[in-house]
């Protein structure tokens, strides 16, 4: 059951200040409306995982690890590998996060990232089956939120695709009923580089890459993911407000152009698509 959350509002002074700044097209941290915070992406930070990447968007910090195992494919997709995305809003990352099983926020986060990867066909799941209906690669993408200062969807999505691009696939051989690792590795078949861009609406203004303070002030957010060929492959409106159709079209234009910028920062994508 979903329940209206209790959110600590900003102080009156701060919220008044944010609104005033926005009226002149500026944000509290000095950015323009469509500017991202400083984006830093490091791939391969967890050497023992099959793939990994850490992303910082300003003070937001996300670590993604990819583990690859073998297991049965889903019965309705016997010719495909399995992709599983999970997110942990660690208590480390913000004092409102409590330890426990995934809540609606971490489930939504994981599913939004999952859809970006799946619907863009970034991961070639067809090539990850080993024996149809019996054995396939299972790719676990675990999103670990280390510090929460807003826009977890995008930070997680950038970390996830970077970790997949960074991942090595352990080659196995099948002997009778047994699966054995050969000790060799090959590239994980990543064919696309979907990039999500989240835009928050604060008092009529559309803000790219909102901070946590901006999210608290926002009536709603929209996350739009586009592919390298300019197709929209996933959208998620979230938060308890609404957008006019015009705002949505405008957000879509912004997302499309900002995605290009971000995609150039994804380690491993340049070489892969070239």
């Amino acid at each position: 059951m979903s329940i209206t959350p209790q959110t600590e509002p900003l102080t009156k002074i701060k919220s008044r200040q944010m609104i005033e700044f926005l009226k002149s097209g500026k944000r509290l941290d000095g950015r323009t409306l469509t500017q991202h915070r400083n984006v830093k992406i490091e791939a391969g930070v967890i050497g023992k995982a099959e793939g990994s990447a850490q992303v910082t968007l300003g003070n937001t910090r996300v670590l993604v690890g990819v583990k690859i195992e073998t297991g049965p494919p889903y019965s309705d997709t016997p010719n495909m590998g399995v992709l599983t995305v999970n997110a942990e809003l660690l208590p480390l990352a913000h004092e409102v996060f409590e330890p426990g099983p995934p809540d609606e926020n971490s489930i939504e986060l994981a599913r939004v990232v999952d859809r970006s990867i799946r619907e863009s066909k970034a991961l070639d799941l067809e090539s990850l089956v080993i024996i149809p209906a019996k054995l396939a690669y299972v790719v676990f993408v675990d999103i670990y939120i280390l510090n929460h200062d807003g826009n977890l969807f995008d930070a997680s999505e950038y970390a996830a695709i970077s970790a997949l691009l960074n991942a090595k696939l352990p080659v196995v051989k099948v002997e009778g009923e047994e699966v054995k690792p050969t000790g060799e590795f090959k590239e994980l078949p990543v064919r696309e580089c979907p990039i999500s861009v989240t835009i928050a609406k604060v008092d009529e203004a559309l803000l790219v890459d909102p901070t946590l303070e901006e999210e608290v002030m926002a009536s709603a957010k929209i996350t739009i993911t586009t592919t390298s060929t300019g197709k929209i492959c996933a959208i998620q409106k979230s938060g308890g407000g609404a957008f006019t159709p015009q705002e949505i079209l405008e957000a879509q234009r912004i997302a499309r152009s900002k995605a290009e910028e971000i995609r150039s920062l994804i380690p491993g994508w340049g070489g892969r698509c070239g």
Partner: protein
Amino acid sequence: MGERKLIDENGLRVDGRRPDELRPIKMEVGLLANADGSAYIEQGKSKIIVAVYGPKEVHPKHLGLTGRAIIRCRYHMAPFSTPERKSPAPSRREIELSKIIREAFEPVIFSEYYPRSMIDIFIEVLQSDGGTRCAGITAASLALADAGIPLRDLVAACAVGKVDGQLVVDLNDVEDKEGEADMPVAYIPALNQISLLQMDGQLTEEEFAKALEMAKEACMKIYQLQKQTLKQKYVEAKEAVEKGEEA
């Protein structure tokens, strides 16, 4: 994905509809005795029942908010609603949909009228054939109205998608699964605002703009049906009262 043809040579869909044609829709309100408001919808083969309870006091009290009512929402599928039996424990999909459906109603409910209170929306999918989150929102609007909860407007919802390269409204299960894109939209006519929007699959910029327009139009048709259903109910109630007075 699918190899099946989803649009035939006459431009008609698997169930004979035109691209912009809704499935047959049947709406009913006030059918559950205990709930403060209730509604039932059949949209194609999807069957959904919704109950609303509240506004009522929050228990335990410390969960209440001082300036407004909290909204609680559950979207849940019956174990027998799907081809394979679904475990009654909430799936990750149901948890996500409960959240975004709740968020779709936050902008229309005058929750500020009821501090320290809560309003419960329970959506049960009894038979699923695609489009259940949208049909659930459509029915939940009726149940909220039936409960007498003050609303800025009704919310009407409908998906638009792409099958065989063509944009179509109100996808059924086959079109959803085998089509190329699916975009559920919830629209608030009086505010000209969209309070739920999701998309998966792939759309170009042009397709997206057109899909948004089609969704709005489909929602407006559903909105008319919603208003008609409520009016009918009001007439029936009035007649029942008058009949009672005569007797």
